[in-house]
């Protein structure tokens, strides 16, 4: 028998109350109440975030860092306040180290194009891992092709854990860069990024951590990790789409050339010479996603008010319940069983293709992800063309899991 965690009697977080903050959750899909379990793809937005974005456009829409007028000053203040919130959230040293971008993918591309192109040469080695999202594979592959550098891959075991001994063997004096995912979007694995960083630094390599699946689930302290670059996306942290963050060590960012040229990233321009702006503006050419950054700031406020540790505990309890519940269903197999893993349950059902699972669950009002999850090498490792994935967010409850389990059972029985 699967038991719900006794803590539900005295919850750390009042989930019923929290759910009221998320308008999208209160609707029917195909006549059934929506059960949203696709949080690793994107999270829903609380009213406070939606209101903050709306308020910007209704009350003080204006460009930043430009006008002397009241609205522009207000917009600039709010935008920069959001930067401060990110700085505190990641425990970064300074707001100069916080760069607003479109998302994690763009952050990887920025580091590849600036740090990578200036510091990585033919014969140098870049290390990534077997469980990377395509966005942390393709940019490094492009750099390797352009420079003649070599891409090395840390393998994983069948639980979805990185083989740290193999990683140590890969490290050598030619290793110039290591880019790894903090938490896997497909397997849920939480990687030992602090240890990875320490080892990489011993050979003088710089380290980037992809935190797209981390910052919304547990406390991230970039100074504690000790890495050189850290990236995440706003929309997976209950914020809007189209905004994300690159954090980088100040001394590295100062030495890096700008990536895109344009307004806001300059101090002075003549046809003979341009003097670039300082940090962080040097990397924010053009009018940024102002409302997005402000919205992200409010998302961080929301998460901080609940307490990231409370969120983590709630999601962990719910995941344990989900794992037990789903594995009781005949034919269901879990993919990704690392000792340290987050609230992501990727699975197969014997004889049922994930795409069919997705359709059947959709008709029950349940949103999950099906497909290759943008991690085709992971699919290859486990010998599957695709997977189904249920992923938990802070507003999910035990009823969501029960509904999903019931529907998965239906799908398994229907095709058997």
């Amino acid at each position, binding site marked *: 028998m699967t038991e719900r965690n006794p803590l539900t009697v005295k919850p750390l977080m009042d989930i019923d109350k929290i759910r009221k903050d998320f308008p999208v959750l209160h609707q029917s899909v*195909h006549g059934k109440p929506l059960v949203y379990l696709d949080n690793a793809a994107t999270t829903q937005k609380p009213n406070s975030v939606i209101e903050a974005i709306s308020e910007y456009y209704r009350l003080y829409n204006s460009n930043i860092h430009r006008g002397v007028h009241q609205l522009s000053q207000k917009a600039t203040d709010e935008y920069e306040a959001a930067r401060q919130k990110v700085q505190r959230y990641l425990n970064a040293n300074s707001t100069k180290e916080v760069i607003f971008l479109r998302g994690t993918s763009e952050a990887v591309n920025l580091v590849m194009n600036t740090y990578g192109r200036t510091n990585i040469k033919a014969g140098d080695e870049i290390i990534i891992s077997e469980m990377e999202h395509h966005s942390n594979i393709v940019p490094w592959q492009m750099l390797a092709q352009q420079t003649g550098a070599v891409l090395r891959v840390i393998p994983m075991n069948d639980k979805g854990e990185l083989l740290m001994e193999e990683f140590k063997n890969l490290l050598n004096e030619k290793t110039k860069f290591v880019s790894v995912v903090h938490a896997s979007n497909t397997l849920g694995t939480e990687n030992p990024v602090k240890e990875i960083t320490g080892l990489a630094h011993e050979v003088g390599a710089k380290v980037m951590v992809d935190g797209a699946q981390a910052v919304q689930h547990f406390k991230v302290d970039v100074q504690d990790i000790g890495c050189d670059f850290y990236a995440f996306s706003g929309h997976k942290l209950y914020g809007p789409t189209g905004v994300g963050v690159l954090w980088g060590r100040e001394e590295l960012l100062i030495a890096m050339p700008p990536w895109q040229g344009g307004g806001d990233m300059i101090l002075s321009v003549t046809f003979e010479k341009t003097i670039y702006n300082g940090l962080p503006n040097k990397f924010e050419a053009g009018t940024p996603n102002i409302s997005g950054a402000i919205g992200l700031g409010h998302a961080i406020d929301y998460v901080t008010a609940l307490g990231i540790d409370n969120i983590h505990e709630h999601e962990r309890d719910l995941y344990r319940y989900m794992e037990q519940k789903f594995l009781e269903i005949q034919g269901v197999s879990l993919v990704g069983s690392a000792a340290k893993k987050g609230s992501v349950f990727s699975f197969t059902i014997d*004889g*049922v*293709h*994930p*795409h*069919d699972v997705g*359709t*059947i669950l959709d*008709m029950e009002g349940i949103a999950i992800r*099906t*497909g*290759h999850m943008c991690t085709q090498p992971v*699919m290859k490792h486990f010998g599957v*063309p*695709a997977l189904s994935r249920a992923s938990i967010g802070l507003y999910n409850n035990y009823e969501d899991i029960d509904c999903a389990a019931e529907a998965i059972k*239906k799908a398994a029985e*229907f*095709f058997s």
Partner: protein
Amino acid sequence: MNEELKELYQQVIIDHNKNPRNFRKIELPSHHSEGFNPLCGDHVYIYLDVANGVIRDISFEGNGCAISKSSASIMTAELKGKTLEEAEVLFQKFHELVTGKLTDEEEIEKLGKLSIFQGVRDFPVRVKCASLPWHTLHAALHDQQTAVSTE
């Protein structure tokens, strides 16, 4: 299971998914092609043995969801012995059927076994699943060498 789902996953489709017909490779095919849906990972290979304008044999391999697998299975079963002209007409009709453009009941009935894919029209995201084998067939017959993609 609601009515729309029952309409989509008819017993014949479930049956062909479990026991696909002509699921094999033709050695030395006269025509062949590969189809791929990058969104879901469906992958299908179609092989044909065509002589004097008649499909003497047709088969498929690959992996995919119940809709794409049964569509490939039923397609091969229906096309064996047909002329290339007949195959071309069925290709067009099938496309109209799954996209909901073919509404004339008599016309739909004429499609015989293929008509069971009618339910797909209520699931726009699944149209590509049903049509992938057909597009791959079309590419094979028109000697397209690059893999067909739904995207």
